[in-house]
């Protein structure tokens, strides 16, 4: 029986060289009969923005292209910068773009020139890169995530890649996998023992943000329920309150969201929280507003900062960080909380202390502290 696919596709395009790959076979066998499957010599041409449409990015999300990854799979987090106190996150790029459609998503700008959903048939090659990372000889642990250029689990009902990943990481003490998602697609995970080496993390927002801005994602409570289930199955669980959107009344909504999380999962069982304010380059803001002209979350009190991004003005943003941090620390003082894409001084103002180095924070979040 075909498994349910939680998003809509018009076409699956497969590069000829990947026709016989396990990934292509799995996907062709799993997509509904209504999805047109065709083969091409070079998949790169197929991920480009379609012409003749007002929303090439949105249309691109309905075309899946299975092709080899021609560059490295492993890279530093694209959000990292010397301007910020970073978390040392490493990104494993197994897919590009996401079938969900959050109005604020940075991919609208980042992938504007190649919006097709790319899945890499040679993903097993990524394990060679991870082997090299695991054997660098240094003492530290590495936190590696697949949820930066795509949602980690959005395609999993079709690809089943999570099983291979969790199984690989379960055998490597120096590596911690983070699967970051806004779905509740956890069925594949429940059948495998992660042996403490996989964290499943959910980006969470209040229902108000979900309703206006997080299109085709799972409702917040479904995400929390899914988190509870993977926790019970032996996974670590983390939460990203990111992007925090400082609309009027946001403080109360986010505090209620935290209450819902703590009702669902004992605070001491949560691996971490990250907090990140909504940030948008002018290009992203223009693209997002063009695609979602009626979204009230895109017209908040953001101002242009020194790094060229719009963010909620500083006292508003830091106050929201502090309130949420206080609530989390009240629930469990030892629970790690960090800020994403914020300066060391912002970190100091919120936590009253200097941030850890990226390597130290990465190690801590990888569970080896």
């Amino acid at each position: 029986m075909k498994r349910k696919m939680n998003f809509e596709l018009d076409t699956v395009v497969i590069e000829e060289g990947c026709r016989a790959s396990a990934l292509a076979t799995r996907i062709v066998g799993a997509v509904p009969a209504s999805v047109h499957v065709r083969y091409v010599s070079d998949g790169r041409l197929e991920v480009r923005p379609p012409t003749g449409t007002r929303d090439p990015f949105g249309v691109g999300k309905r075309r899946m292209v299975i092709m080899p990854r021609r560059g490295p799979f492993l890279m530093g987090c694209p959000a990292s910068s010397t301007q910020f106190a970073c978390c040392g996150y490493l990104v494993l790029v197994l897919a590009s773009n996401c079938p969900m459609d959050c109005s604020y998503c940075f991919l609208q700008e980042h992938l504007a020139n190649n919006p097709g959903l790319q899945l890499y048939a040679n993903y097993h090659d990524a394990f060679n890169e991870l082997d090299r990372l695991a054997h660098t000889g240094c003492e530290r642990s590495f936190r590696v995530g697949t949820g930066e250029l795509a949602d980690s689990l959005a395609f999993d009902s079709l690809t089943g890649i999570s099983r291979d990943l969790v199984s690989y990481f379960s055998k490597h003490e120096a590596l911690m996998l983070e699967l970051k998602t806004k779905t509740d697609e956890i069925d594949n995970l429940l059948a495998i023992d992660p042996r403490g080496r996989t964290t499943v993390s959910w980006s969470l927002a209040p229902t108000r943000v979900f309703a206006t801005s997080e299109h085709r994602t799972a409702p917040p409570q479904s995400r929390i329920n899914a988190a509870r289930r993977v926790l019970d199955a032996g996974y670590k669980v983390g939460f990203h309150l990111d992007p925090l959107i400082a609309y009027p009344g946001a403080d109360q909504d986010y505090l209620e969201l935290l209450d819902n999380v703590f009702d669902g999962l004992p605070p001491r069982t949560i691996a971490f929280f990250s907090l990140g304010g909504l940030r948008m380059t002018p290009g992203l803001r223009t693209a997002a507003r063009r695609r979602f002209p009626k979204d009230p979350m895109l017209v908040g009190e953001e101002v242009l900062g020194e790094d060229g991004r719009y963010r909620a003005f500083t006292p508003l943003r830091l106050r929201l960080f502090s309130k949420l941090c206080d609530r989390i620390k009240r629930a469990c003082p030892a629970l790690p909380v960090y800020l994403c894409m914020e300066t060391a001084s912002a970190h100091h103002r919120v936590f009253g202390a200097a941030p850890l180095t990226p390597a130290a924070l990465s190690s801590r979040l990888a569970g080896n502290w």
Partner: protein
Amino acid sequence: MNSPDVERRLRRWAEAKALPPAYVQKCLTLDEPSQKGLLQIAESLKMHTGQFIAALTLLDEIAIREGRQVDEILAYPSVRRVLNSTGSGPGRARILLDELRTLRYPRLKRAGQRLAEEVSAIKLPPGIKITLPRDLASDEVRVEIAARTSTEMKQLLECLTAKSGEIVRLVAMLDGADGGGLEVE
């Protein structure tokens, strides 16, 4: 005025002012009462093209956030007061834009005023200047000392030392912990 009239007059005004096509299009997608309201402010305040673009952008964003139509925003008492006031058209247009910015960024406006009041309350001499971050977009506060003689510099430094507690408090206020101006009304 019926709809074709409003649209024709808006197009005529836009053509005379060389309004870029994207903004003309934006006007024409608004409902009729909003088009009418925009035309009225453009004509009665003798708006420059840039002023009109700024007003349209602010009104559109306020309308999205508050779930209202542009004509409803133009009917707010604070906006009506500006529109019904006396003075030159372009001068009133500037005041209207200030009011629309206040509506668009209400908490920023309050927080900025609150911090500016704190700076005034420190009562620094003319040789010391405190600059808050533009639009409160960062947490960096700049303190400048300008002196021409060693005596003057010594006096200013002593003054700065005496006021250090208040200045430190001001810098701390940028984390919003005091809640100044940030509460939801």
